[in-house]
Each structure stands twice: as structure tokens, then as C-alpha cells.
């Protein structure tokens, strides 16, 4: 039972805002040592897993492209484009992005958009520009527009990708069920992800519209 102290270390560490890398290392050692491993064994297990998970960090390879485009004025261009469409405000822009992200993810195209390659250079500047039309944004409001843009990318991705049959989570479920003696065609798992996907679109979309109204109300 003391093994669970590692989990407690994570919760407490994040709550008191210790440097998260330190929290993770402390939690790994707490867990490992209470589970009966020696410190060297924990270090080796942690190092091995870190090395095996390098693909997680390989996604930063898109940053040079994003940076060059920023240097050449992409964010400014994205703002100008939005300002040309007078009727489009921040709420509908984010709803449109939510729908697009859900549909492309459902088709298995999860990597064509993302926080680094779409939210920072395009979606957030567009939403900010649209909100600025109703009056200058104070720093706090600007930050919340950006936070909503990032949240929209996550919601769109999570509740779209599970409709695609060859995504990791579906394969995990098929594998788990097969190991338990239940043969399952992945298409059934994807189809039953659709009701939740629709609910996610309605709930998050409604929140985005309300957020957009609040932005407008701020100017009035």
C-alpha cells in the first residue's frame, strides 16, 4: 500500500507547484523504493523508459518551420485575413476549428494540426484578432482567448480520434478484449465513439459561443 505514496507525491508536488520534472523524479523513486527496488534499479528502469519514449519529444521537429513562418509574418497575416471578414467573431472561429479538428481526427489525420503547428501560429492569432475588433484586449482576456484556443484543439483531437479504427486506443481495446476471450471488430468500438463525439461538440461548442458573447459584452 505504501507504493501509492508515489502517486501522493505527484499530487502534492503538482499542487504546491514544485518544478514538475523534479516531482516526476521524486515520484518515480518513492514508488520504486516502496515497491522494493534499489535506487539503482529505479534509475535504470526510469532511464530505460525515458529512452524508449523518445518519440514523444520528436514532435518538436515542427518548431523550426513554425518559427520561420512567424519570422516572415504568418501571425500578422492570419490576423489580417480574419479582419477582412467583418462578420466572423472569435466564438464561431473556434467552433469551426473544433469541428474541423474532430472530423480530420476521425479520419485518422491527427497529426495534420496541433498546438505547435496550428494553435500558436494560426488559431490563437485569428481568435485574438477577431476579439480585438470589439475593442482592445487587456492581457488577462488575451490569455484566456489563447487558453480557449488550446483547449479547443485538445477537445477536438480527443473526441475525434477515437472514431478512427486504427488509432492506438482502439487497438488497445481490441487487444484487451481479445486477451479476455472476446473477439471484437474495431469498427464497433469506433462507431460507439460517435455519440460522445457529438456531445463533446455540442458542450464545448456552446461554451465557445458563450465565451464569444462575453468577449463582445466586454466591449459594450
Amino acid at each position, binding site marked *: 500500500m505504501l507504493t501509492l505514496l508515489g502517486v501522493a507525491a505527484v499530487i502534492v508536488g503538482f499542487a504546491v507547484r514544485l518544478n514538475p520534472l523534479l516531482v516526476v*523524479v521524486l515520484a518515480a523513486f518513492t514508488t520504486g523504493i516502496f515497491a522494493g527496488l534499489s535506487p539503482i534499479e529505479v534509475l535504470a528502469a526510469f532511464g530505460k523508459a525515458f529512452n524508449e519514449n523518445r518519440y514523444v519529444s520528436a514532435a518538436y521537429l515542427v518548431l523550426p518551420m513554425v518559427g520561420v513562418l512567424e519570422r516572415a509574418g504568418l501571425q500578422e497575416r492570419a490576423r489580417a485575413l480574419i479582419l477582412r471578414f467583418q462578420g466572423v467573431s472569435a466564438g464561431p472561429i473556434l467552433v469551426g476549428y473544433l469541428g474541423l479538428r474532430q472530423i480530420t481526427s476521425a479520419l485518422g489525420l491527427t497529426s495534420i494540426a496541433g498546438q505547435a503547428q496550428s494553435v500558436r501560429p494560426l488559431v490563437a492569432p485569428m481568435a485574438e484578432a477577431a476579439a480585438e475588433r470589439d475593442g482592445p484586449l487587456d492581457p488577462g482576456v488575451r490569455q484566456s482567448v489563447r*487558453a480557449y484556443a488550446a483547449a479547443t484543439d485538445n477537445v477536438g483531437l480527443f473526441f475525434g480520434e477515437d472514431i478512427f479504427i486504427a488509432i492506438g486506443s482502439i487497438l488497445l481495446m481490441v487487444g*484487451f478484449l481479445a486477451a479476455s476471450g472476446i473477439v471484437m471488430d474495431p469498427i464497433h468500438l469506433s462507431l460507439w465513439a460517435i455519440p460522445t463525439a457529438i456531445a463533446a461538440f455540442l458542450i464545448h461548442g456552446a461554451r465557445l459561443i458563450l465565451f464569444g458573447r462575453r468577449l463582445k459584452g466586454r466591449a459594450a
Partner: protein
Amino acid sequence: MIGLSAVYALAGLVFAAFAVFSAMDRANGKRFGNAVFWGLVATSFLAGDRLGDVGNGVLVLALTLIAGLGLLGRGQPATTSPEQRQALAERFGNRLFVPALTLPLVVILGVLVLKPLQVGGQPLLDPKQATLISLALAAVVSVAVALLLLRQPPVSPLQEGRRLMDTVGWAALLPQMLAALGAVFALAHVGDLIGQLVTQWIPLDTRLAAVAVYCLGMAGFTMVMGNAFAAFPVLTAGIGLPILINRFGGDPAVVCSIGMLSGFCGTLMTPLAANFNLVPPALLELEDRYAVIKAQVPTALPLLIVNVVLMYVLAFR
């Protein structure tokens, strides 16, 4: 066959360039901290397989110490001013979107065209890693398109990439660190322990209670473990399969699918899902590290309740 090793070699060289340019950046008072940090990341990508398990562990400890002791600064590569960017934006117009759209197009091309391709009886791309390889390829192609089309200095991708990487800072490594923590949790059977606690202490004698415990448990467990994949086998083996499917006769497709999506509601609410929830605030330069989570909780909670209702209604038709 092109596999992950090619992607790692490319990433290693890019991070090595970040390290070298960091060391040369006199505007950054902590430039050597940055140089060592990104240099260690480059070492991991280029030589991780030759360091051995303990060697990799020491490398992670060094990265953690640099971050934890605040030795990481923020580089100031020469870049364009806001006024210059405005002028460039007007000059280039919609041409600026071409490299940004090249990236997704090349990813699609890679997954749809290159992935099935066979060369001499061997697949051209490692089928298991086709998406990541395509993403790396797309990153290179779109940088080339940007340089040619927008006539930017050849060194700018590396310098601008370093500017963004320093903006993210140590948070960049958190997702990989948490994945490694997940492996230690698995080694210590943390998941099984929590699963036992849940099934031992919470009554599951009615269908609704069992559905609610399974869905809320998936969300809560995902919040603690940082990802729904770790929660799914534990709670499905503990509640989903024996109780919802075997005892109450629930449809396994509905139970599993909506159970996993309940886990995703948890992912929206936990700092442990760092690549979704903590890296974006750094990338968007938000002051509150938890701003994105706060923007997501009011979507995640109602959606979780909807999932309970959906499973209750759809699984037992």
C-alpha cells in the same frame, strides 16, 4: 526501411544545433544552462541506445537538476521586429500559408502513399511509425518550402526553432518524463493496487452504480496516471469486464468505447497529461501554468456525466 532511428538522428542534430547556438547567445545570462540542457537532449536522441539504462537514468537526473535549480534561461536569437513582420505579412500575403499547409499535406501523403509503398519486398517506412516519420519528413519539406518561397536566411529555421524551444523550456521534456514515470508505476503495480481499492470499497450492486463507478473511475484514474491507456486495462479488468459485461450483460463495444472516452475526460483535467495541458500554456506564453486545464474542466465534467448516461442507455439495449 526508414524507421524511428532516422527521425531520432534528425531530432538529435536539430537539438545539437540548438545547444551550439545557445552557447553562443550572449543575450542569455544562463546560456550555458541552455546549451547543456539541449545538448543532453541531443545526446539522448543521437546516442540513447548506447548509454545503457543507468546511463540514461543519469542523463535524466542531470536534465532534472538543470531545470529544478533554475539554470535554464531564455535565448534571444535575432529575429524580425513586429513592424518588420507587419511589412513582410503585407508583402508575402497568402503565400505565407503555403508552407503551413505543406506540413499537413506531406503528412497525409506520407500516411496514404508512402506507408503502403514496398521497395524490394520491404516496406519503405516502418509501418508502426509511419505517422511520426511522415511528420518529420513534412517538417523538413515545409522548412525547405518556407526558405525558398519566403527567402529567409538559411540559418533561420534553427535559430527560430531555438527561440520557440526556449519558450517552452523544461516543460518540453515533461511528456517524455511522465511516460517514463508510467513505466515505473507499471513496474510497481500501482494500477492494480488502485483497482483493488476501488473494487473493494465501492458498492457495485446496481447497474447504474457500476456504470457510474466505471466511468468516473476511468476519469479519476486517468487523472492520477496521466493517460487513459494506463487506466483502461486496470478498471476494465476490475469493473468493466466482470461486472458490466459478464454480470449485467452490457455490450462490450459500448462499455469499452465509452469507458475509454470517459478516461479522455480525465485527460482534459490533469497536469500529468503534460503535452496537452502544460506544454501549450508555455508555447502560448500564458502566465498561469494551469490556464488550459481551467478552460477544459467545464467541458470535461458535463461530458463525463453524458458518458455515464450514454453507457447506461446504450450498453443494455
